[in-house]
């Protein structure tokens, strides 16, 4: 088993954090091998931001995504920039208010969620990445729900634990 996951969006959306949480969930709490890499532009907010996660049963050498099984995008520019990285028939997860798909998306299995809108309804758009992580967990089954939640719990500020828990469950339950 080897799964390649790519997250894309803008600085400030928690794209790097989403990758870190996913890789840690798989590596520490599901006991698999995992690697997390990140790339960001010089701006603190608003610039392009991307992270990559490889999960495998075996030791991982090359640490980058070659052909993504999953692409999760939270900005239209990320959709344009990274769609070619997704293998044909792969899973495309989008924030439907921020990404407008075109005919190219027909080659992929597309799952849409208004993650940022849900986060705003919960009280803070900052947890949009956690909403989409919940959704990704339900759609993919790549990381167990338990492991993903443990990893979120260890990575977010304690005072916002409840908000993050709601965000995670809203995202998870949005699927199906």
């Amino acid at each position, binding site marked *: 088993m080897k799964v390649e996951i790519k997250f894309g969006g803008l600085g400030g959306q928690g794209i790097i954090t989403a990758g*870190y949480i996913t*890789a*840690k969930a798989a*590596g*520490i709490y599901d006991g698999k*091998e*995992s*690697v*997390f*890499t*990140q*790339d*960001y*532009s*010089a701006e603190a907010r608003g610039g392009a931001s991307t992270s990559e996660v490889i999960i495998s049963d075996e030791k*991982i*050498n*090359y*640490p*980058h995504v*070659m052909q993504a099984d999953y692409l999760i995008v939270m900005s239209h520019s990320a959709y344009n920039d990274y769609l070619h990285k997704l293998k044909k028939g792969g899973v495309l997860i989008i924030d439907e208010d921020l990404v407008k798909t075109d005919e190219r998306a027909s080659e992929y299995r597309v799952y849409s969620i208004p993650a940022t809108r849900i986060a705003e309804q919960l009280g803070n758009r900052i947890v949009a990445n956690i909403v989409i992580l919940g959704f990704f967990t339900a759609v993919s089954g790549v990381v167990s729900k338990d492991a993903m939640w443990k990893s979120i719990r260890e990575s977010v500020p304690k005072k916002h634990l409840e908000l993050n828990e709601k965000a995670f469950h809203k995202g998870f339950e949005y699927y199906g």
Partner: protein
Amino acid sequence: MNAGRYFWSGDIAAAEGAIAAGCRFYAGYPITPSSEIAERMALRLPQVGGRFIEMEDEIGSIAAIIGASWTGVKAMTATAGPGISLMNENIGLAVMTEVPIVIVNAMRGAPSTGLPTLIGQGDIMQAKWGSHGSYEIISIYPSNVQETFDLMIDAFNYAERYRVPVIFLLDALLAHMYEKLDVPPQEEIDKRVINRKKPTKPPGETLIYQPDEDLVPPMPAVGEGYKIHATGLTHNEKGHPELTVDAQEKLVKRLNDKIRKHAREIWKVEEYLTDDAKLIVFAAGSEARAVRTAVDMARKEGLKVGLMRPITVWPFPHEYVEKYAVDYLVSEINYGQMYHMVREYASGRVELFPGMGGEIHTPQQVLRAIRRMIE
């Protein structure tokens, strides 16, 4: 750190490895992609009774750790391209005055400010030849997070054992890449920690630069009563300037020989499928991870290819290269640096597969280079 399993970046592992090795002083000026080392040390050193200072620049940073080391503490700094260039004059001072220090250089795209967040491997030769003069240092370069933690203990051991600056190379990819690693119990780590030799004779009867048989002089600390005179000028065994051909010959030869004569104890090299290989790909750091995947792909095509990964970059582990009468492909993210070293020692053909920086090669690119060279 408590023993256990953690999910850390190369930067965090470097900082925690240093603390596990006994480092208790850090002076630095944050620079991408090494800033997280400073951040971690600022958090952790006060917790273990150490000191962290954010300095005004990199020249001050290295000067501060040289001074700190003379007080008997294990000291470190971390930087990247523009910062290491500023540190080079004082790296020479640490070589000449034989001060144990560890300097992390997280290599990024260069020259100049280049690509701050992206990988380069352009500082390999600079690690050896950055300061003026003819000297030897030790440089090591891991390729994963576990190894970064483990090798940091070796880095401090080498610095203390040989009284020499150790350049600990990282690259931007490894610095910011997260993997799980196991931290052993501190008692286990302590068993392999080496501390500097102290003078056995009292003050007045000790020449502070008189070497033992291993060519390394014991090192007193400031405040212990020994008259310490440490100068970058050519000096005698008292530490006093002696600007003569004979003193220069005696001192500089020993500074080089204390490393060269112990090279075999220092060398660490990983070999993968080299036994029956017709072609060996030579690569270090993060680039070696792409090469290892490419070697697996090549083997599936029936190509007899292996990987040689120098973990010790300096002193260059030439006996490993000499051991195989094969062709070498040197895959590195620069325009030819280790390539020249391999060419010096290989008996077969040597070719370079360069990258200008920003990313490591993809395994497919390395595989194509392997196929080209075999045909």
